[in-house]
């Protein structure tokens, strides 16, 4: 078998890896969607439950669809970087390079060059969010209209923010809650918690509202005449599914970058590092003295 045929076969498999998840999602949707008359706006379908402490672990449509999106993203990455060369000869390589360069430019513009390691994370946030929201175009349940999914992401972002804040030292972090005066402490705590909650609800609410409005328009037009159902909902879907979904992905990524880079107390961190280096130096000197004796 020649190299070219092998290349083609791998390409075909990767394209299948991108398309099949969504086909599977549609099949699942058809199999599991309850028949209903009129408008019904509900959350995700629960496929099955596993007994766990606190709450049952539910495998819902949102979870499954986000896994499908992940498989799609992995397939996309593999497809774009398949046969990557130093001298590019394919359009897909240009696309791959464009994505990497754009995300890195975004990170360096909003966070600075020392946060460059965040570029894949931002790309992951953008990709997951955008493609999750866009999956509603195929009639799938968009994972981003499930609060749990976005809440998971925003909690991860919150963990990263707190990790960066703690780099200035625990004392510095705790002190931050009692500023400008100690009475403000409860408000500061609320403000801290509000960050992930607001991020999650903003994203979730925007996508959900799109779904709700799309359903309402669909139903309302159908109530008037079935002919109106053709075409017109697509125009609204253009805004609510595509524009709104992409904008929310961008906002989520943007907020992630800003919160992380703003949360990092640079001065305190540098002071702490200097102190640490000083302590290390002294310890070494003491060790050297002991050794000499």
């Amino acid at each position: 078998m020649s190299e070219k045929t092998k290349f083609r076969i791998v390409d075909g498999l990767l394209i299948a890896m991108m398309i099949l998840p969504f086909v599977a999602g549609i099949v699942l949707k058809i199999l599991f969607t309850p028949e209903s008359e009129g408008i019904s706006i509900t959350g995700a379908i629960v496929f099955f439950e596993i007994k766990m402490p606190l709450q049952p672990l539910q495998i819902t449509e949102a979870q499954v669809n986000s896994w499908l999106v992940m498989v799609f993203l992995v397939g996309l990455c593999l497809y774009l970087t398949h046969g990557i060369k130093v001298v590019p000869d394919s359009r897909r390589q240009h696309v791959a390079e464009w994505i990497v360069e754009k995300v890195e430019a975004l990170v360096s513009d909003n966070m600075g060059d020392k946060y460059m390691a965040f570029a894949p994370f931002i790309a992951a946030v953008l990709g997951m969010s955008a493609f999750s929201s866009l999956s509603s175009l195929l009639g799938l349940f968009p994972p981003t209209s499930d609060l749990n999914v976005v809440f998971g992401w925003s909690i991860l972002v919150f963990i990263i923010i707190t990790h960066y804040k703690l780099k200035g030292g625990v004392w510095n972090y705790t002190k931050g809650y009692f500023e400008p005066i100690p009475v403000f402490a409860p408000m500061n705590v609320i403000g801290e918690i509000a960050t992930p909650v607001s991020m999650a609800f903003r994203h979730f609410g925007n996508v959900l509202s799109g779904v709700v409005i799309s359903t309402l328009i669909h139903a309302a037009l159908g109530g008037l005449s079935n002919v109106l159902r053709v075409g017109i909902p697509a125009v609204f879907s253009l805004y609510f599914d595509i524009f709104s979904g992409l904008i929310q992905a961008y906002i989520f990524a943007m907020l992630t970058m800003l919160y992380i880079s703003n949360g990092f107390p640079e001065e305190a961190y540098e002071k702490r590092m200097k102190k640490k280096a000083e302590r290390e130096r002294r310890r070494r000197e003491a060790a050297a003295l002991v050794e000499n004796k």
Partner: protein
Amino acid sequence: MLLETQQLEIISVNIWSILISLANLVIIFLLLKKLLFKPVKKTLAARQAQVDKIYDDAAAAKQTAEADRAEYEQKLADVKAEAEEILTDARERADRMSEEIIGDAKDKAQAKLERAEEEIAQEKKKAMTELKDDVSALSVDIAEKLLGREIDEKDHAELIDKFISEVDDNGK
């Protein structure tokens, strides 16, 4: 409904779902890093290195070319100077030679002229002498005839010569 299912409320919070979603994002982050960013950045770095190398090569080639050009220009200038020198030399030599030739020619011509003048003078002298002899002989003849007797040629030639030179002196 094909299969029995239950549906969630629109807003429902499930801690396990949140954890799964959190883990999903971490996993996709690692996958993107490994599958997209790593190969692309590696390629970009390799390309940058290649481009840098090409630029360096070009710069080196340019430098060499500049050096070569300077060398050639130097050589050309040298050659030109040399040619100029040769030409000047040749011209000088030619001038000198022509002067020599002309001088020679002039000298020769002068010598010839002098010789010719000398010859003329000699011829004149000769003619004069001949004429004198003739005249003396003629006068002796005439005098013989007039006197009717032979004059001793030898005795009287001296006399006549004297006479002629007196005439000659007066005539001049």
